[in-house]
């Protein structure tokens, strides 16, 4: 890499950003539309003396990462849709074992064979799935290649701060497209930096056990309940991230993340030129869900327009709760088509004209 200002695909930018943040361990398995990460890592890790393993399947990818994290490495594994579904058990184990890790889901449409178009259908999987038990992860939703790069650094920071898995979720459109991007400087990660990681003991030290954290809590599950609640609360209180655009005086507030939010941003601008007061709450985290972003909504707001590429309108419930069910919700849901600026605005106009149907 000759310089820090380049054009890159989202997937490749993620890979390069991870490396520049000190990631020296990658494990994963090919799956469209994220295979570029593996392909990039296959040569780039050799340049920087790291490890890129094409594992035999996603499970091995996830559990190698589990081990590499336990050993103190800064680690990455990426997948998409069905492959990410196979990570579920491991994510639960990462949470239950207090291990930092960065995982990426490049979401694609659909539930079964043959689906690779862009989509935002994995929202619930990432926000509420996460395997068995009482799991919650931190989930970041970048909307541009540049933001992928920034959130990659942030992801490592949060993962290690909370000793917790962080998931970066973006859809195929962002993963596959190239944009201009400024990359961070190269940064080395010290695998000995944390006391908790396994590294062999020194004379007199006790052996470390990376396992179910509840074993180390007062009264086991009783203490673990508190531990986990406190951790989740800290994350919820401190890590909400969003971008509000002209929300305060908006008559219709759009809510979106990722690729859809870019269209919404344009819609706000175009609509305001036409005299329609749109605003946008862009979710930069979906977990914790940025409830605080909704405080800025003003008294002029007639309705919220959810813009998401999903059949179910997967963020509906969270937005309803964030607004205490006080603002009518409308949805422009598309599943695989990238939403169009004009349609966003048209629905907003219908909302204002009282012609739209609520989703909840």
């Amino acid at each position, binding site marked *: 890499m*000759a310089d820090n200002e380049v*054009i890159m695909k989202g997937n490749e930018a993620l890979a390069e950003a991870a490396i520049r943040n000190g990631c020296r361990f990658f494990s994963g398995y090919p799956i*469209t539309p994220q295979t570029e990460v593996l392909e990039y890592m296959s040569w780039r890790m050799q340049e920087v003396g790291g490890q890129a393993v094409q594992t035999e399947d996603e499970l091995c990818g996830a559990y190698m990462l589990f081990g590499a994290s336990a050993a103190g490495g800064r680690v990455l594994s990426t997948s998409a849709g069905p492959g990410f579904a196979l990570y579920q058990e491991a994510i639960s184990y990462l949470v239950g074992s207090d291990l930092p890790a960065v995982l990426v889901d490049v979401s694609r449409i659909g539930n079964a064979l043959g689906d690779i178009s862009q989509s935002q259908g994995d929202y619930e999987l990432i926000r509420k799935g996460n395997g068995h038990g009482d799991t919650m992860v931190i989930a970041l939703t970048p909307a541009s290649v540049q933001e992928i790069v920034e959130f990659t650094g942030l992801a490592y920071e949060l993962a290690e701060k909370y000793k917790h898995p962080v998931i970066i979720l973006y859809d*195929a*459109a962002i993963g596959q*497209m*190239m*944009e*201009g991007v400024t990359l961070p400087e190269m940064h080395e990660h010290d695998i000995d930096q944390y006391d908790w990681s396994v590294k062999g003991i020194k004379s007199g030290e006790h052996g470390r056990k990376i396992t179910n954290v509840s074993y180390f809590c007062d009264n086991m599950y009783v203490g673990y309940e508190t531990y986990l609640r406190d951790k989740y609360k800290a994350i919820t209180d401190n890590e909400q991230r969003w971008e509000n655009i002209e929300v305060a005086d908006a008559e219709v507030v759009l809510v979106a993340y990722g690729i859809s939010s870019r269209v919404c*941003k344009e819609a706000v601008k175009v609509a305001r030129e036409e005299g329609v007061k749109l605003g946008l709450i862009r979710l930069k985290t979906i977990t914790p869900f940025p409830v605080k972003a909704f405080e800025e909504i003003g008294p002029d707001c007639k309705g919220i327009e959810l813009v998401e590429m999903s059949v179910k309108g997967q963020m509906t419930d969270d937005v309803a709760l964030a607004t205490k069910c006080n603002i009518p919700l409308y949805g422009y849901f598309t599943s695989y088509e990238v939403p169009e600026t004009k349609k966003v605005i048209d629905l907003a106009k219908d909302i204002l004209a009282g012609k739209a149907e609520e989703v909840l």
Partner: protein
Amino acid sequence: MLTEIICAGFGGQGILTTGILISYGAFKNGKKITWYPSYGSEMRGGTANCTIKISDEDIASPYAKELDVLLAMNGPAIDKFEERIKPGGYLFVNASIVEDDRKYRDDINVIKVDTVELAKKAGNPKGENIAMIGAILKVTKMFTLEQFESSIIKYFTDKGKEKFNDANIAALKTGYESI
């Protein structure tokens, strides 16, 4: 101003790279860009294409519905995308492959570029795409020849392929001057 371009042709014709070169040129000249490929099973056998958007401002969706420019390296590319060109937009046709008697919409500008011939002339038989870009620069005045030259040199130099620089610039110029 937002410029929307699609490059399309057979897989193997270097379509994606052509798009990247245009994007990179725009980026190095201070523009925002998005480049978006067809990916996945579409790659198999058939056609390849990519969409480029160039703007001074943030770009919303990387998809394009109203093309300023279609760069068509073969016939099927025209079949598929001609209708999306804006009235008054440009269709650059690879005249080395596409039949000469083909009919086109009459509200667009069709420019035929004999890429094989030009590349040969430039002494760079693999430079068909770059010759095509040269022609596009001349017609659309998106960038000056010099602006694009320096970006193309940087692009290949960064990739460790500086030895092709002269040949590539020759192809670019030959294409530029062919119009």
